[in-house]
């Protein structure tokens, strides 16, 4: 329960971040969604043993965090929270993939460890990219961007409704759950019997709420069609943003910059 409560608090915090007013925030959501998708695609299309070529991609989340004034520690914390799951699955790589790949003097590193590290870097990048998107854009504008990319209206509406009522229902569930906890000694009374009526009642109240919302919609002339006000257009800034980052990502993807750099430096000293 506490995890969902903190998750909801984080959700509100992300919305506050997204309400910021920087150049990045002001960009058209569609541009940000497109760039984020390309970013993720470039990162994960790297080979499973790729390490160094992934590193330049850190520029994107770092630059966004800096330019949009996002708190780096918060984003880092969110990414770390997600890591255990990745570790759980990734840890099998060193176990099953023991072909030596890299050699440092007498130390042999197997392909499994390399790909394990690669998985970790990938997840930091992809999760970071997603958080940067939400932290600079917000949920509703992201949905609108997806709508413009061709997502069916029924589904966009569903996302917006869901998001609106998460807060309301989570608070309600939190109260009911607390009420049960206060009157049950330890785990007694927390069994499936009380669960049944608690969740059942919550479900019926939710059902009733849906009916009232529908009434409220009808009262304001709803006839099955959702009209939304169109957001600002795709200007010069958006085009620069999209093309700039896309070019950079493709460049990062095709050239192993760290290797070139490293070769240059080690070559210099050798």
């Amino acid at each position, binding site marked *: 329960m506490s995890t969902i409560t903190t998750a909801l608090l984080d959700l509100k915090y992300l919305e506050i971040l997204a309400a910021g007013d920087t150049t990045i925030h002001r960009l058209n959501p569609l541009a940000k969604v497109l760039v984020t998708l390309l970013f993720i695609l470039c990162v994960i299309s790297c080979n499973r043993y790729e390490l160094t070529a992934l590193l330049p991609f850190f520029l994107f989340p770092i630059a966004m965090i800096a330019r949009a004034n996002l708190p780096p520690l918060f984003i880092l914390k969110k990414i770390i929270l997600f890591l255990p799951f990745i570790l759980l699955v990734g840890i099998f790589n060193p176990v099953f993939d023991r072909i030596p790949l890299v050699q440092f003097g007498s130390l042999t590193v197997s392909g499994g460890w390399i790909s394990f590290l690669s998985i970790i870097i990938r997840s930091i990048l992809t999760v970071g990219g997603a958080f940067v998107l939400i932290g600079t854009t917000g949920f509703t504008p992201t949905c609108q961007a997806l709508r413009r990319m061709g997502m069916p209206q029924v589904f966009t509406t569903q996302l917006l409704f869901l998001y609106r009522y998460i807060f309301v229902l989570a608070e309600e569930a939190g109260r009911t759950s607390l009420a049960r906890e206060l009157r049950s000694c330890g785990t007694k009374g927390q069994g499936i019997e009380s669960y049944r009526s608690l969740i059942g009642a919550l479900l019926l109240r939710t059902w009733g709420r849906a009916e009232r919302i529908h009434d409220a*919609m009808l009262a304001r002339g709803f006839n099955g069609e959702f009209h939304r006000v169109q957001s600002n257009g795709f200007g010069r800034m958006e085009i620069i943003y999209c093309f700039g980052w896309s070019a950079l990502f493709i460049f990062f993807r095709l050239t192993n910059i*760290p290797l070139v750099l490293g070769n240059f430096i080690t*070559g210099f000293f050798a």
Partner: protein
Amino acid sequence: MHMADALISPAVGAVMWTASAGTIAYCSKKVREEMDDKIVPLMGVLGAFIFAAQMISFTIPATGSSGHLGGGLLLTILLGPYAAFLVTASVLTVQALFFADGGLLALGCNIFNLGFFPAFIAYPLIYKKIAGAEYSQTRIAFASIITAVAGLQMGAFGVVLETVASDISSLPFSTFIILMQPIHLVIGIVEGLATASVIAFVYKARPEILSTSLHRIPVACSLRRIMLAFLAATIVTGGIVSWFASEQPDGLEWTIEKITGKKDLEAAKDGMHGTLALLQGRFAFLPDYSFKKADLKPATSITHADTEKPKSEGNRLGTSASGITGGLLTLVIAGMIGFGLRKRGATT
């Protein structure tokens, strides 16, 4: 269990995205055409309800652990498959965006694993058959548990297939399956139990809620259409992706060769027969294992690698050293750019 971006390949991600997006489009059309306006807010708040319900748990007798509702099956029973699929997809989208549960690219996989199987396979083929037309409380309970278990087993199998097909994790198919299926059997029973008890409550309090959804349009005929569409989507995307992949394997291989200094190993993995051979090798992983074990001894490995490759050891060492130096440098530069941007942002 959620798939994560870091574990899937673009090809698998793209195929599953196409499949999920197609199903979303199809379900949206169905909901729009065949259902009352009333369903719009109902779907929305029920999605939020699933979130809220996951905050509340119950203790499982004699184990000391607790369980809660997953929601996919409950939604399908209440709303019918089309609307339920959309609600599940929306819940997963919010989770992917805000809680980084899964990630954006893996979203297609997650929607399919957790949304499609319960709504379009387990529900029509199992739940409806068992619950029948003149449903009773015991029948509903029985049907819920079996259906939840079946749905989750299929979902877990989906996770395994997608992971193995992506080939990012080295977990062999057989091991992964042995890990995943039993865990999800337990989760499925808990899920079924929770669903059954909530449905029983609703059945007593407001039976009309269940009767309206139970009599919604049968899905048997459209199921075939969805499966066909899914198949077509898979073939088309799979074709496009593999065409692109085969068009420029050189760029990929070139980088791999550069960093690892091992061309042959990767080359063997390339192409269809290579993948198949690899899969075969993994199924019978014991002989494979002993081969790798022999490989592991540093001394033999070097000579072994050396006979395999014309490259000298020194060269390889140099490559990894410069890789690390360059990597560190890149990170420092990226950090400095970020710092500079922030300072500039603060002054303007």
